[in-house]
């Protein structure tokens, strides 16, 4: 290369400055993206001349313990293009109001000087109301002023509170963890008002119901660094490369460190590419495979030989040794409930004796009552709620007997249901006949019943499979083939590898799981089957082990202090919090399109309601689930009426309400949801795409909530199977008077709202961010001030509060009372309220608030001072302290210490710590949280010590002096402290893993037995046959009703439609981003198999229509050999605003998005309440809105796409 000359003359190199000059900036500010991606990555934002130019990943996470790889690089393709939004043409720069409504409003305001009267004149005029509703989503926005918009919103809220009650005003914002104070802004405002906050985790079906079933916990999982500690990783329904983008490197590093990575996925997904072993399991059928894995493990690692580590683990940390009653039936026996301690003479006087369980002691062969069951948690004598294997009465050591197989008194033929094969097996189970207060009762251990359930005969008589090759008998490796599509040898090999690795490493095997498995109707069973494997192999609570479920950035690490601020508990309690799935299922009238659930999910005995809505209403009546609006009456009027009747104390008022309910003078709103007084009226949406990506059954939202066009054609089919809830024939369109969206971009929700308020973007505000995937807390920072007329969420809700208080001076001048109902809650004594299921409305028991029906509270509101309350940290935090996971931490003098740190806010002659500036609010969260204030952690552990009688405070002793402030986080992300509210131990850089504290420090799980549960004995679980881990196949096409009116024509295919998380967006955010669209196909495409495509004449990039009775999607096809036949993928959840043409099949209307073809379906068994771990907690419990069992017809779009 001698001909290439070295250029040495500096003159000729001066031009290089051209590129150097591009790399200039004035400042660099730390922020992140509040987008529910679970990444929670810290970013450095570059600013030049007051303009955000670009962003780069932060590289300064504190290190974890030696040996663990670094967290960085963290940050993905979506995050790195965020700055595009700030100055994009999609940016909401000003407040917008739809023209139709603006005209009506200005007209009304010219006549009515009072804004509330003006609002009344519009919404009480059916014609006007219908017109502005029909205009929703169809353009016609006009720029408005902040003042005008705030006035409309405040007026509508006051109007609604007066006319119907504050519980007709609802708010939705998901995932507080992504920007905690922005969430808290709206929730605090709403709770001070008495509005309803809707949950998100269960609405997204991201919440895994198996987690409370087994562990009494919403979700508690390892940070991604802990994957590195694993030696065997199974990833299912979780496409790590795509959806855990910044964490995926740990999986590769674990592999390089010796772990095996196994992936279950129907398509050859991005993570499959990285796997050592890809197992192409049929979509939604993972559970069958795990059931057979358990069959093999039980046979080879528990019968053919025993593994001491596994046996010991089950005895100490699971319900396996606990005794279950067998009930005599015609042909033999069936399983019943756990034998309760007070059923034995010896323990009959035990406090909460029906909430304490029994085991047989190996040495004495006698029943013993181990500590740790839920009865010990709520008894007066504290200190026995722990996992020490001691008899609570005598204090003697217990060695629990797992199996009676070698010492049985009898063999009982017990019936077991096989739902996939629709048959019942009778299998021999070894029993003891135990003398109880009601005579001799046959009992068996959970372990022996589990052996029978999984078909491991151990030489016992009965219908047991003959071998692994038995194709007929559940749950052999051969049996599962027809469901999972996976060969038996594969299952046997997987089981052996998994258990052998767990044996050698003492549990360092993990299942990483996500929405691909969790979004199915039978998600809880799919999960429990895998969790059973983990429990059988001693993997839970071990670093490198456990069920690592990642779906949604649900972990609000400083939850205890945050919830006090966010729910305004410092001023009033309880808050109105409702499970989103039930709310939308009922109010968006999706129930009207659903038949009887026994069609696809038959129960035995009780719970044989035909329609889910009847069951929902029963659950509300019995206090299992919340529901708002509460009654068909205004709760403010009710309180007034009670007072007029001379009821003074809260107790008297509550009894009066019960009397009215019993007399039928008032009714629960859920019992007649379509009656206009029971409709939700005003909806505030912020940090959300509530009308689209969060709207399972989106087309029904459009029709029933908004009253605008909809592409749904499904028939209403519920009337004949509805027995208790009132059916109304009237066409129900447009329940909502006003929809308000706070947004920085014109997404689908903004497009369909009445008012759009410009909110600050993620580089224009200060906030806090945490995630499940790492153990740091770090900030969003204002790199530039909010652009144009945008404001931070905090400031928007402060402005709204100010306006509301202003109007309230006329309409609600002084404080007043209202009635608030709440369900029976987890982590309170409510969870031992209902040992048996009794419906007071049917005379089965007495109506007792907080026991057999919801709690009924009297709450004081002060609208005229709502703004002041918002701005000041109220005295409630000092009085009640903070609480999370049942740990109550006193605040005491720390309140005053905090008051000295921040400016004061003074009103009505009193001084409070000011929250006006969001940074002070952030500092309040940090200052009172045990995860960021060592003293609070220490105090929390002291409380836990009192509850458990264990020594625990040493976990926080070394960190008592630590106090993180917002400024600290701006400097560098900080690692959280070991907290009494969580179960991981993170001292000395140890990676966080769920339940380490339960296993190592013997704190009970928050379940019935205090242990992890294989067996669930709530009556609903017995009725639906889900007491044991079991398998139920996907809902059939026929039973989904998806295609009742959408037949497949020629050259079309019926395909299962799944919507996993995509590569070029986080939910809908970034789906409209130019860079993301450029790197993909310019539109969110529809993926299908090459052979399927050929069959219907579709070539790559052709336009296709995909439709069913719920709606239609029109987009381009991606044809790929990567996709299996019979399945199509439409990645969740692009906005329907970008490049989607109209649908010739559906009246030439604009095609929709992901949720246009879905309708939510709630699983009845998951409503159980008032019973140990089956108790409600906001976002932590309840039936998820499942939507994955969806089918569509796909065909090529004929001719050119229609646009206008």
């Amino acid at each position, binding site marked *: 290369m001698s001909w*290439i000359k070295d250029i040495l003359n500096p003159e000729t190199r001066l031009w290089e400055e051209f590129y150097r000059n591009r790399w200039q900036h004035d400042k660099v500010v730390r922020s992140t993206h509040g987008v529910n991606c679970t990444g929670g990555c810290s970013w450095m934002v570059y600013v030049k001349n007051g303009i955000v130019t670009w962003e780069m990943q932060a590289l300064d996470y504190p290190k974890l313990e030696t040996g663990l790889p670094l967290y960085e690089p963290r940050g993905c393709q979506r995050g790195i293009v965020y700055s595009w939004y700030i100055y994009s043409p999609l940016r909401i720069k000003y407040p917008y109001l739809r023209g139709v409504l603006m005209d009506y409003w200005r007209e009304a305001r010219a006549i009515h000087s009072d804004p509330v009267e003006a609002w009344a004149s519009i919404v009480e005029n059916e014609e006007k109301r219908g017109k502005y509703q029909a205009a929703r989503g169809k353009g016609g926005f006009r720029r408005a002023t902040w003042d005008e918009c705030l006035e409309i919103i405040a007026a509508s809220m006051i109007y609604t509170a007066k006319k119907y009650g504050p519980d007709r005003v609802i708010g939705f914002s998901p995932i507080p963890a992504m920007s905690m104070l922005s969430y808290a802004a709206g929730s605090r405002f709403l709770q001070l008002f008495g509005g309803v906050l809707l949950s998100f985790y269960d609405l997204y079906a991201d919440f895994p119901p198996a987690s409370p079933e087994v562990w009494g916990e919403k979700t508690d999982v390892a940070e991604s660094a802990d994957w590195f500690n694993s030696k065997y990783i199974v990833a299912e329904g979780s496409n790590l490369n795509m959806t855990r983008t910044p964490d995926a490197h740990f999986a590769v590093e674990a592999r390089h460190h010796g772990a095996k990575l196994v992936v279950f996925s129907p398509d050859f997904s991005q993570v499959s590419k990285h796997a050592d072993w890809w197992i192409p399991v049929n979509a939604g059928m993972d559970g069958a495979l795990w059931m057979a894995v358990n069959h093999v493990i039980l046979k080879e690692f528990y019968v053919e030989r025993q593994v001491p580590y596994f046996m010991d683990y089950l005895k100490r940390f699971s319900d396996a040794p606990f005794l279950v009653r067998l009930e005599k039936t015609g042909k033999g026996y069936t399983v019943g409930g756990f034998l309760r301690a007070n059923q034995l003479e010896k323990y009959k006087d035990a406090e909460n004796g029906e909430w304490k369980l029994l085991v047989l002691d190996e040495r004495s062969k006698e029943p013993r009552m181990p500590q740790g069951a839920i009865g010990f948690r709520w008894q007066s004598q504290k200190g026995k709620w722990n996992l020490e294997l001691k008899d609570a009465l005598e204090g003697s050591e217990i060695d629990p007997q797992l199996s009676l197989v070698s010492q049985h008194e009898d063999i009982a033929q017990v019936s077991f249901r096989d739902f996939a094969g629709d048959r019942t097996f009778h299998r021999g189970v070894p029993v003891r006949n135990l003398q109880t207060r009601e005579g001799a009762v046959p009992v068996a251990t959970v372990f022996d019943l589990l052996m029978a359930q999984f078909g491991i005969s151990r030489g016992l008589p009965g219908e047991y499979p003959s071998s692994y090759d038995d194709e007929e008998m559940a749950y052999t490796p051969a049996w599962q083939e027809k469901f999972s599509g996976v060969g038996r040898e594969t299952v046997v090999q997987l089981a052996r590898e998994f258990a052998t690795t767990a044996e050698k490493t003492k549990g360092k095997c993990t299942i990483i799981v996500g929405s691909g498995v969790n979004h199915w109707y039978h998600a809880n069973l799919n999960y429990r089957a895998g969790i059973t494997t983990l429990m059988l192999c001693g993997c839970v609570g071990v670093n490198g082990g456990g069920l690592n479920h990642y779906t949604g950035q649900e972990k609000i690490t400083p939850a205890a202090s945050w919830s006090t601020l966010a729910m305004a508990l410092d001023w009033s309690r309880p808050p109105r919090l409702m499970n989103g799935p039930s709310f939308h299922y009922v109010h968006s009238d999706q129930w009207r399109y659903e038949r009887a659930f026994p069609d696809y999910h038959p129960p035995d005995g009780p719970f044989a309601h035909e329609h889910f809505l009847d069951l929902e209403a029963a659950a509300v009546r019995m206090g299992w689930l919340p529901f708002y609006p509460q009654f068909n009456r205004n709760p403010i009027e009710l309180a007034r009426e009670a007072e007029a009747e001379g009821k003074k104390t809260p107790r008297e008022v509550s009894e009066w309400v019960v009397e009215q309910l019993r007399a039928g003078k008032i009714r629960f709103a859920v019992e007649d949801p379509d009656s206009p007084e029971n409709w939700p009226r005003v909806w505030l949406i912020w940090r959300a795409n509530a009308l689209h990506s969060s709207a399972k059954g989106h087309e029904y939202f459009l029709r029933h909530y908004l009253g605008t*066009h909809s592409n749904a054609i499904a028939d209403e089919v519920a009337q004949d199977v509805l027995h208790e809830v009132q059916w109304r024939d009237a066409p129900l369109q447009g329940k909502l008077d006003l929809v308000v969206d706070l947004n920085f971009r014109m997404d689908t929700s903004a497009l369909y709202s009445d008012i759009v308020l410009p909110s600050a973007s993620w580089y224009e505000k200060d906030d806090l961010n945490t995630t499940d995937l790492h153990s740091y807390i770090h900030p969003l920072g204002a790199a530039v001030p909010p652009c144009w007329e945008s404001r931070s969420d905090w400031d928007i809700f402060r402005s709204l509060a100010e306006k509301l208080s202003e109007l309230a001076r006329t309409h609600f001048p002084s404080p007043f009372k209202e009635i608030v109902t709440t369900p029976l809650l987890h982590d309170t004594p409510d969870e031992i309220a209902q040992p048996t299921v009794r419906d007071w409305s049917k005379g089965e028991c007495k109506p007792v608030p907080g026991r057999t029906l919801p709690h009924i509270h009297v709450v004081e509101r002060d609208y005229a001072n709502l703004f002041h309350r918002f701005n000041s940290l109220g005295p409630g935090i000092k009085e009640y302290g903070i609480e999370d996971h049942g740990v109550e931490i006193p605040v005491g003098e720390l309140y005053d210490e905090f008051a000295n740190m921040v400016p004061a806010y003074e009103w009505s002659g009193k001084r409070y710590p000011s929250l006006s500036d969001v940074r002070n609010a952030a500092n309040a969260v940090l200052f009172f949280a045990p995860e960021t204030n060592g003293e609070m952690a220490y105090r929390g552990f002291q409380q836990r010590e009192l509850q458990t009688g264990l020594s625990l405070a040493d976990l926080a002793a070394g960190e008592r002096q630590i106090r993180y402030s917002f400024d600290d986080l701006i400097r560098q992300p900080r690692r959280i402290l070991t907290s009494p509210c969580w179960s991981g131990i993170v001292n000395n850089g140890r990676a966080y893993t769920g339940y380490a504290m339960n296993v190592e420090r013997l704190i009970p799980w928050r379940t019935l037995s205090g242990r992890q549960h294989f067996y669930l004995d709530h009556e609903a679980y017995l009725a639906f046959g889900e007491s044991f881990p079991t398998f139920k196949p996907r809902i059939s096409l026929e039973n989904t009703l998806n295609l009742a009116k959408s037949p497949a024509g020629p050259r079309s295919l019926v395909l299962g439609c799944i919507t996993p998380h995509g590569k070029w967006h986080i939910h809908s955010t970034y789906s409209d981003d130019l860079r993301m669209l450029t790197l993909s196909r310019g539109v969110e495409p529809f993926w299908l198999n090459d052979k399927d495509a050929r069959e219907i004449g579709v070539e790559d990039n052709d336009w296709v229509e995909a439709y069913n009775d719920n709606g239609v999607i029109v987009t381009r096809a991606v044809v*790929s050999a990567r996709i299996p036949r019979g399945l199509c993928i439409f990645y969740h959840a692009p906005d329907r605003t970008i490049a989607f043409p109209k649908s010739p099949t559906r009246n030439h209307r604009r095609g929709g998005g992901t949720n246009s073809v879905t309708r939510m379906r709630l699983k009845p068994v998951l409503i159980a309440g008032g019973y140990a771990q089956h108790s409600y907690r906001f976002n932590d419990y309840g039936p998820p809105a499942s939507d994955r069992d969806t089918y569509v017809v796909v065909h090529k779009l004929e001719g050119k796409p229609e646009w206008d």
Partner: protein
Amino acid sequence: MDVRAQVSMVFHLDKCIGCHTCSLACKNLWTDRPGTEYMWWNNVETKPGTGYPILYEDQDQYCGGWVLEDGKLRLKLGSRPTELVNISFNPRLPTLDDYYEPFTYRYKELIDARPSDDQPVARPISMITGEEMEIEAGPNWDDDMSGSPIYAANDPNLQKVMNEEERRRFFELQQLVYFYLPRICNHCLNPSCVAACPSGAIYKRGEDGIVLVSQEKCQGWRMCVSGCPYKKVYFNWEAGKAEKCILVIRGLRPDRLQLACIPA
């Protein structure tokens, strides 16, 4: 010349998850300007696939790189005299369609739409002409085996190593494999782009081996585009000059030596 040091960039192909964060870091910093819309100095390809620009590896078509002839290296594109003949018409150049026509959308329609009887939508338009367009190509069009019967199946490398029956079996779901190939300029030790440049505008820096196109000297002949076998030199249609990866010229970032694509 004496290359005294050679800075190289290494991508760990077993760790690469095809997320394209590196591409975007680079895009945001360097090619977010008129004339560079279609340029991706750093891009990531799914292999098998046809890449960006399409079939760039097919040197029968593009004639990039070197050939060894009689023990001597010469440009596959031809000798200097041939080059001069073709200087005004170079048949070995990829056209915009071989890359893709950069597009954007009528985003403002969503905010400004007049009242109508259906929902407004943002339609795609060309960044070159401003006209409405059908999107038929992109810089990452065959990502994750999308369009595999058209793209992956026509990967020139696959054609070379498998017969037809092997290729048929390869595209059965359970036989499939793919991986990601992140690509920037290799800053070759013996860069054919430098050799191809009639203006002497491209040089390799002796102190670190970085290959740069002088924006002063470049005359826009585009021989470098043809000469590079990786198609990693691009033509800025507005400036009329060639541009390429600058390996974030050393010393550019005072805080630490770092490329845009590295942390990503």
